[in-house]
């Protein structure tokens, strides 16, 4: 855009200019200082959380020795993988259905699809709790499904909110694409599946991957819904950490936190690098 010419007008002069800079610097410090302090204190050789006593790798060793933490991480990874795959398939299909077709009931579906995004965590959690409470017997009739292990419930509920996020990201991508390519493929006697496989899918791939990364992040981040549906013995790591925090803090939380934070920051950077590489432009959320 050619607003660059007048951009200089936008920057205030004199005192306000320095005030603006100072303020921005402080806000960035506000953003990062807690993260940095947490990182430093994960090497603190002390049982108290806030008081620096000396350097140690002890809490990382404790992290590696702790079977419960390891088990929780596995639960998180499993739930995250299953729920992301299902959410990506369903979300992408619904994005295509909404963006490329006109059908009866579309508006209603569109509206419902937005609800999981804007609904508060606690309400969603309560919904899942009462739902599984009321319908557990019916689910257990289905062969191969055992709700009491908790894993299925976690996957089901994570998919329920992630379909919407995936769908929204893929739609944003689809809306910016020209449908004429697909039509051209159809004119050249490609059937719908071929047109999708050869033309549409490669084009929306950045959106699909962006949606998948968002779904992974949200699934790993989720505390509230998961803590309502998780069963004993199958708690995801976020719920496990939340439980530790509420019982009283041990510095073990610091090392676990740093590992989780590193994982989520790597995901962000991966998605930024990826969106840069594919030129999909602005980050969607």
């Amino acid at each position, binding site marked *: 855009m050619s607003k660059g010419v007048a951009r200089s007008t936008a920057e205030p002069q004199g005192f306000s200019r320095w005030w603006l800079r100072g303020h921005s610097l402080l806000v960035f410090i506000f*953003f990062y200082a807690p993260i940095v302090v947490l990182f430093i204190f994960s090497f603190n050789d002390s049982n108290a959380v806030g008081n620096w006593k000396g350097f140690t790798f002890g809490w990382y060793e404790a992290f590696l020795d702790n079977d419960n933490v390891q088990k929780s991480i596995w639960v998180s990874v499993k739930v995250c993988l299953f729920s992301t795959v299902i959410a990506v398939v369903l979300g992408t299909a619904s994005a295509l259905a909404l963006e490329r*077709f006109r*059908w009866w009931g579309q508006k209603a579906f569109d509206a419902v699809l937005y609800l999981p995004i804007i609904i508060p965590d606690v309400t969603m959690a309560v919904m899942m709790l*009462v739902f599984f409470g009321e319908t557990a017997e019916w689910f257990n009739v289905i062969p191969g499904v055992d709700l009491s292990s908790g894993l299925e419930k976690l996957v089901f509920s994570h998919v329920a909110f992630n379909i919407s996020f995936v769908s929204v990201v893929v739609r944003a991508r689809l*809306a910016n694409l020209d449908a004429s390519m697909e039509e051209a493929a159809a004119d050249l006697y490609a059937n719908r599946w071929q047109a999708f496989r050869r033309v549409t899918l490669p084009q929306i791939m950045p959106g699909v991957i962006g949606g998948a990364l968002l779904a992974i992040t949200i699934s790993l*981040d989720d505390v509230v819904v998961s803590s309502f549906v998780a069963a004993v013995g199958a708690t995801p790591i976020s719920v496990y950490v939340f439980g530790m925090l509420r019982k009283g803090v041990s510095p073990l939380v610091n090392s676990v936190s740093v590992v989780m934070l590193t994982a989520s920051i790597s995901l962000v950077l991966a998605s930024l690098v990826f969106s840069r590489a594919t030129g999909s432009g602005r980050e969607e959320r």
Partner: protein
Amino acid sequence: MSVAAPPDEAQGVDGPSEVATPGLERQSERAKARQGFLLGLPAILYLLVFFVIPLGIVVAYSFATRTRSGRTELRDWNLNAYARLGDDIVLTVAWRSLWVAALTTVICILLAYPLAYFISTRSAVTRNLLLVGIMIPFWSNFLIRTYAWRVLLDSDGLVTQMVQATGLSDGRILFTTNAVILGLVYGYLPFMVLPLYAAIERIDWSLVEGARDLYANGWGAFRRVVWPLSKPGVVAGSILVFVPSFGAYVTPAILGGNKEGLLGSYIVLQFLSARNGPVGSAVSVVVLGVMLLGTLLYFRSGGKNL
């Protein structure tokens, strides 16, 4: 964060426009509608089972009966749970939630606006770098980011010591409502910065130049030109911050005291400790209502992006 691209009416939905007979056209349109419906069907069924029905059950619970043993039974429909919303405890908690969410939103605007303004007046390279700097906390684990404050606010934590050094107070912030507000501001500030940035970045600066040419001073140009043009961003950011703050549960649980819960904590308490499904559901329904109203207002005010 432009997620909600409005369905584009103009493109690619009509199919081939030149069809020999109108009958054929109608037929192919119907076939296409069927295909679209079938494509969406798996997601429709999934959300019906795992979202719409659960929501329906919560609404039903809010009118249901609680037995002595704490079970919720779907019979003898009544409004008792909603009558309980008038209780002093509920009103106090609701008022506190409203107040905390409002204060969080205002603080976020005050912190985010100058920052968003600063970012959008940078050169393209710096701008992208700064935006990545906002993205990282935006996407990082919320629970852990909240917990980080616990380390700083600990009785001999860094912030506590700094506050004590100023001599203004004893520095005891942890487990108070102030700590909750601090945590919420920290958690949701990126949600304010990004839409504000999107709005300010879009401003046509030649309008500001025009105002300056007409002898508006810096403040005048800001108040009359920049502020009104950036208002959609302020509204969008406010909703993105207010709504989750209003229903917050994690932040108060980690940084707040036991006695000063917010609505989110109250709902959890009703379900997990008090075993009062109807009241918990009724509060959830009300919170959801407030949220939907907020979102509707947002779309009304012309916002398209979430």
